[in-house]
């Protein structure tokens, strides 16, 4: 199935980030073709060298770590739980699939607010109940490491694959370490998160196989192209294109007024074009086009109004391409390339 001339890109087939991943890639201009929903393969027409492989999030990590797939998208929590020398996190901020891996205890434990409280309770269990604190989790590696680092040594990990939140109610665990998105499930199970008990702030991330990335130009090129789309699309979300009509003596005078405020200077400066033949008055009208950051939009529009701007339109920007993909440049540095 795996053609040595092609690149295998593993995507989540199930779970909370499966659907959002398809939407995300589609928003990046990388529409996915999955001919049969029951099959595990697919293609991206914009990346003709790429074969898609749909796998569960954990299997995405395994497949990329062992090199079966060269690239993959999965959750950061899963990557941290299964560290591997050949695994590189290429982009850890794809801005979807947000969740937290955290420690939660029964709400009835009103004496517990911090991990320090749990440290003491673990000692109490040991001394008074002659047993360990039982922790239900699927994230055994991260849970063990985190608890030890917080001075909690007397615990037993109860591994379970699902319905972790129910463990304290059913009675086979005292506390849990689990993924939380909104906290609704925790509340419904009478659990509460510990404030300083967040182990991983997770979201979707792009991973790659280090050995393939180091040696194989084909994988490097595909990664570069993929990151061009991803970076440009993520950057694009931050900006809008704004056009405004301004009346004035000349393009140069207007340019000076517009550029006087850093908010409306745009990425380089305003583009100004005359509006031809539309006016009964002797005044000249111009259309100013600038690219601005979304978070500064209203202040920018206010400034444009003050210099006589009117009829402002704002259009979303789909992509912003800089000189190079910053993520790919960072990856090359991480891999030790010049």
């Amino acid at each position, binding site marked *: 199935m795996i053609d040595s001339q092609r690149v295998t890109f593993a995507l989540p087939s199930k779970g909370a980030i499966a659907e959002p991943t398809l939407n995300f890639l589609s928003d990046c201009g990388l529409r996915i073709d999955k001919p049969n929903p029951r099959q595990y393969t697919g293609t991206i027409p914009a990346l003709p060298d790429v074969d898609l492989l749909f796998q569960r999030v954990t299997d995405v990590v395994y497949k990329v770590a062992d090199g079966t797939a060269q690239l993959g998208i999965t959750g950061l929590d899963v990557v941290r739980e299964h*560290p591997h*020398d050949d695994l590189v996190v290429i982009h850890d901020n794809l801005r979807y699939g947000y969740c937290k891996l955290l420690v939660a*205890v*029964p*709400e*009835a*434990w*009103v*004496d517990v*607010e*911090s991990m*320090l*409280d749990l*440290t*003491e*309770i*673990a*000692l*109490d*269990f040991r001394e*008074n*109940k002659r047993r360990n604190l*039982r922790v239900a989790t699927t994230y*055994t590696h991260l849970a*063990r*490491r985190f608890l*030890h*680092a917080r*001075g*909690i*040594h*007397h615990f*037993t990990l109860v591994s379970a694959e699902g319905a972790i939140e129910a463990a*304290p*109610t059913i*009675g086979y*665990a*005292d*506390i849990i370490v689990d993924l939380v998105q909104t906290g609704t499930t925790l509340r419904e*199970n*009478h*659990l509460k998160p510990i404030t300083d008990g967040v182990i991983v702030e997770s979201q979707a991330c792009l991973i790659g196989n*280090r*050995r393939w990335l*180091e040696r194989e130009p084909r994988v490097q090129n595909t990664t570069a192209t993929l990151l061009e789309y991803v970076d440009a699309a993520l950057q694009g979300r931050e900006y809008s294109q704004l056009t405004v009509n301004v009346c004035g003596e000349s393009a140069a005078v207007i340019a000076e007024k517009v550029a006087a405020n850093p908010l409306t200077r745009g990425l380089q400066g305003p583009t100004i074009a005359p509006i031809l033949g539309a006016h009964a008055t002797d005044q000249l009208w111009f259309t100013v086009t600038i690219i601005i950051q979304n978070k500064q939009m209203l202040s920018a529009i206010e400034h444009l109004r003050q210099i006589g701007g009117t009829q402002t339109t704002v259009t979303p920007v789909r992509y912003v391409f800089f000189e190079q993909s910053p993520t790919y440049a960072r990856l090359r540095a991480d*891999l*030790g390339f010049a």
Partner: protein
Amino acid sequence: MQPPSSADQFHLQQTRQRILKQFSTELAAFFAHLGYEMVETPFIQDAELFLTKAGDQIINRLFTFERNGRNVALRPEFTVSAASLYNMQHPMGDQVVRWQFHGAVFEDDPEAPHQIQRFTIGVELIGQRGVDADAEIIALSARGLDEIGVRNWRVQLGHIGLMRALLKQFNLDSLTERVLLTQLPALHNPDQGKAYVLSMLDQGLLSASPTDEPDHAFTDDMTTQNTQYVLDVLLDATQRGVTMGGRSRHDIVERLLRKRQRATERPQIAAALDLLTDLSAIDAAPPAAIRELSSFIPSSMPGARTLVQEWSAMIDLLLETHLIPETQLRLVPGLLRNWDYYTGMIFDIRDKQGLLLGGGGRYDELTRLVGGDQEVPAVGFAYYADTLAQHLDNQ
């Protein structure tokens, strides 16, 4: 670049490995000559064995894994294994043994994931009480260095037993005591100090409860207030459903009261921190340090006084017999070691550049902690052979 694997690291240090091999053979012969028998311990043991003390700084680096449902660990050092072996061989706790160990020990440090294995050489003297045993071990650690040609070593001597004894005057619970002792390095750090530690404790150990206004805890009418408070909590907990996770309402209320009690102990804790700050500022040659230290010991604490006298006698013994030159010995009461099982004097040996070559101390409770029927007096030390090889390589 592929990070260097454990094996690569191993080969990178060929020279040091050769040095290490040579001096470990020399040391083994030297210790054997003085009556220390070479003993082997298993590489893999139940992780539980190493989890006896919750305050151990090093436990979060224990290399653990699960095997057929059992949590096992690669040995992180020899002392715990020695105590366990002693229990097996001498369950009555009535024999004196002199043991030496050498070999690989392991740690799993997330900061250095490829430095798993280190070489350690250790010596344990179990079953013998008193200052003679302490002096024997310290002298042995220093003489061993002379034997393999390490020059310019310095011994820093501390006493965790004395620090614990002095904290007793503040009537703190065991968790508080333990947390305060782990703050010794912070108290000693000019960028942190007492105010920093106290503000940290306010956020953690000393915070009472979110449903609680801080002044509440300080009122005179504690009994009535607490009864009211307990009732509130019980009612509140009942509303929060039946998910109790293995604790009863009684457990929760009891601990809540303990926590509130602790929040009222802030003045004692501040006073304890003052004392620890003063003690950790001492770093001097023996006679001056003992004088300074004695000034902090209230006459109401004869136990602490005795400890200082014994300690002082042990130091005199080392100096009078010229086992340690006075210029190479510093008293640092605020010294802290990585393992929490120490109960008495503790020490570090460093070279002039401050490189930690070894260290040890007294651990009288360990045999019982690892499952023995009684506490057996014990004292020992270990060399960090890799830093020792590095030192010899530099030298």
